[in-house]
């Protein structure tokens, strides 16, 4: 029996390897195992992506594993059982890393693992390979197979394979309500009798059935290990597959005899017919995404003003009074707190409502099942750049945060596809970049901010296609193209609890960045601003123009002069933005607040300074310079957390190559945009 003490850790981060070297056979998908099972946010680099592992189980605790087909509800069940907040989503491949947490079963603490989804033990991709290796080589004390009733035939193949060995297995039967809506009633008792293991019907989305599952787990652990369902497995893989399919068919017929005689089409089939249709599907997708950004910017604006007023009023006054009370008024401490932390971090916090609204809307789309339809719609686009359709799923994740998106490339079976996708992910415009776009769009395109931001997302997709086409002609030239087969998840009515939970999980990541790496960055920028290099003023009392920060930014500024944004405040912000894209915003707020304290108190005041800077550096072609800047910001480099994730997935050399490509492309495109814009005037 495997226990938490003897289980080796999942493969760790930091491996430097060359995925291209492992895929010499063009038509045989090759799997590289870098970091599979490792935590996406492991390592010292903070990320704006938060995921929820739980407290560890004590050494020697029995290990229980949740396994099942992709999108059968394993992570939702894991969260329901342990109170954790792992990322969940209604599409296949949401979980590419193992989650673990202690779980008390009938007074006994066990270690519960949430494994990446797999239809069977024939691994097609690194996430499936990890699940296979763990189940075959180091079987847990008990395996809980999560079976979606709405996809019964697709969920039972893995159970058929697991039952070929002597091991403790039980079935958690989910999605009974969705199956019923499709006219399929699944009988849990009949299924249990046919497959020879306990079957517990539950609804993890609504927290129902947890107690019954815990009781069943305790009973199963107390019983002897059951016999395998067959004595010998055919050696030929297709013969073995046929035998398992016959077993699955028998189980389906016993549990859901009406499934094959159900009405041919349902309401959701008619909806799907339109949402995935050749012309209507892409139009609906674009309309949905435009609505998301329009709604986000419109609803967030008054909330941003409220937060800004609160920070610049009561919070600033209280901080100044507090510093004064300990005798440090007008000292560098007050400057650090008020001009540095409150101006910088506070400015970022005014964008928390905006980010929360976008996260909530995306969570609604994900939970409903629409995003899997979007992947079908974009299949042709992905194939045009030599990637399989499912490569769009990491890209969608990237629009929230690039870090988990890089990890999500593990759902792709081919090593070269993963390499290309991991280098394309940084072009997806994450929520951190959204904050800067919104500030600039509100400044320069008032009244059309939502459309301007949406245009940046279209630009993001256009750049992915552009670079993807180059990859197709080079990196992916010899890579074979397997037929695309995608199981559509059933539609679900999003629940308020789950939507709020996902939104809070992601917002927490945003706030953790603001409270962690951004505080460090703000402090460093403040320090560089406090050191004089000319003018004779003392530490902390230097004119911003005479500070070390301004001096360093001016050294680099000429590189950006041909792009229309060579002002030292802007260039300094871009350099700081290497750490995290939110830092562009905080750096602007800090550097302008040092000369004009009102600039750090609300986005309105800051906007005026930024507008003046762009007008002066662009020679009158302000709009062209702003667009060039936004495109540069989109492309030039992802945050350090994403670079760390890339290094883990594709190695340091490819990561360095990716950064170099991004920098050259960003500078070149921004140059072309500004120079053409200037000429067209």
């Amino acid at each position, binding site marked *: 029996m495997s226990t938490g003490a003897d289980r080796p850790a999942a493969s760790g981060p930091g491996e430097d390897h060359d995925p291209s070297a492992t895929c010499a056979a063009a038509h045989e998908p090759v799997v590289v195992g870098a970091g599979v099972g490792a935590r996406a946010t492991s390592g010292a680099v903070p990320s704006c992506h938060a995921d929820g592992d739980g407290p560890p189980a004590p050494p020697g605790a029995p290990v229980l594993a949740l396994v099942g087909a992709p999108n059968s509800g394993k992570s939702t069940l894991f969260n329901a059982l342990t109170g954790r907040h792992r990322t969940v989503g209604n599409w296949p491949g949401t979980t590419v890393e193992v989650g673990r947490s202690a779980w008390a079963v009938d007074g006994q603490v066990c270690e519960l693992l949430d494994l990446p989804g797999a239809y069977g033990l024939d691994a097609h991709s690194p996430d499936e390979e990890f699940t296979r290796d763990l189940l075959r080589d180091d079987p847990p004390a008990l395996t809980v197979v999560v079976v979606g009733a709405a996809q019964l035939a697709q969920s039972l193949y893995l159970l058929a394979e697991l039952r070929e060995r002597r091991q403790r297995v039980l079935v958690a039967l989910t999605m009974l309500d969705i199956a019923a809506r499709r006219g399929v009633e699944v009988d849990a008792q009949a299924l249990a009798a046919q497959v020879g293991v306990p079957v517990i019907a539950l609804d993890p989305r609504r927290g129902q059935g947890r107690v019954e599952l815990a009781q069943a787990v305790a009973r199963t652990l107390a019983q002897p290990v059951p016999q395998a369902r067959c004595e010998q497995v055919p050696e030929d893989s297709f013969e073995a597959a046929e035998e398992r399919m016959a077993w699955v068919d028998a189980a389906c017929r016993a549990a*859901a005899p009406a499934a*094959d005689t159900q009405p041919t089409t349902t309401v959701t089939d008619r909806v799907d017919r339109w949402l995935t249709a050749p012309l209507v599907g892409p139009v609906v997708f674009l309309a949905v995404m435009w609505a998301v950004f329009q709604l986000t910017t419109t609803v967030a604006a008054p909330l941003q003003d409220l937060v800004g007023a609160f920070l610049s009023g009561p919070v600033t006054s209280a901080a100044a009074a507090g510093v004064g009370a300990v005798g440090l008024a007008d000292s560098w401490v007050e400057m650090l707190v008020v001009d540095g932390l409150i101006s910088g971090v506070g400015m970022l916090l005014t964008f928390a409502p905006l980010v929360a609204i976008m996260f909530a809307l995306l969570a609604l789309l994900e939970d409903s099942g629409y995003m899997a339809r979007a992947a079908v*719609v974009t*299949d042709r686009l992905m194939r045009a750049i030599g990637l399989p*359709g499912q490569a769009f799923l990491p890209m969608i994740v990237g629009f929230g945060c690039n870090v988990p998106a890089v990890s999500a490339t593990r759902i792709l079976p081919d090593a070269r596809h993963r390499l290309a996708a991991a280098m394309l992910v940084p072009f997806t415009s994450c929520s951190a970049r959204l904050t800067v776009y919104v500030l600039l769009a509100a400044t320069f395109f008032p009244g059309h901010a939502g459309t301007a931001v949406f245009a940046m997302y279209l630009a993001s997709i256009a750049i992915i296609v552009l670079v993807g086409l180059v990859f197709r002609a080079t990196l992916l030239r010899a890579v074979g193209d397997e037929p695309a087969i995608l*199981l559509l998840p059933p539609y679900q009515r999003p629940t308020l609890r789950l939507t709020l939970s996902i939104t809070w999980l992601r917002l927490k990541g945003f706030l953790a960045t603001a409270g962690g790496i951004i505080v460090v960055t703000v402090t460093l920028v403040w320090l560089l601003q406090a050191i004089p290099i000319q003018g004779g003023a003392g530490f902390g009392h230097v004119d911003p123009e005479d500070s070390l920060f301004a001096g360093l930014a001016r050294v680099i500024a000429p590189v950006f002069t041909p792009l229309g944004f060579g002002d030292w405040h802007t260039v300094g912000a871009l350099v700081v933005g290497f750490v995290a894209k939110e830092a562009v915003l905080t750096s602007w707020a800090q550097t302008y607040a040092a000369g004009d304290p009102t600039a750090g108190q609300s986005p309105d005041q800051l906007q005026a300074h930024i507008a003046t800077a762009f007008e002066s550096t662009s020679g009158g072609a302000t709009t062209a310079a702003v667009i060039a800047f936004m495109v540069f910001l989109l492309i030039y480099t992802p945050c350090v957390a994403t670079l760390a994730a890339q290094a883990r997935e594709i190695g340091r050399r490819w990561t360095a190559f990716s950064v170099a490509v991004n920098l050259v492309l960003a500078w070149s495109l921004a140059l072309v945009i500004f120079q053409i814009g200037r000429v067209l005037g």
Partner: protein
Amino acid sequence: MAGDEEKCELRRTPKGTRLRVGGMLPGRSGLRLRHLGLRPGTLITVLGRTSGGGFLIGVGSGRIVLDRRAATGLTLFPVSA
């Protein structure tokens, strides 16, 4: 016998038609289709065409999207009434 029956092509089959799978794609794609519940003898329902030239089909209560290559790799026969 299957060999005597007239084969059906998904692109020429009206929506809502029920078909029986006769032959499968070889290799890993065939194995993947088996994981998803498709094998010789399985009944499928044609539900529509998708963006990019693929097809949406129903297999039991599951819904599967096949791209053009996966679809042409299936040998399909009409289900006699």
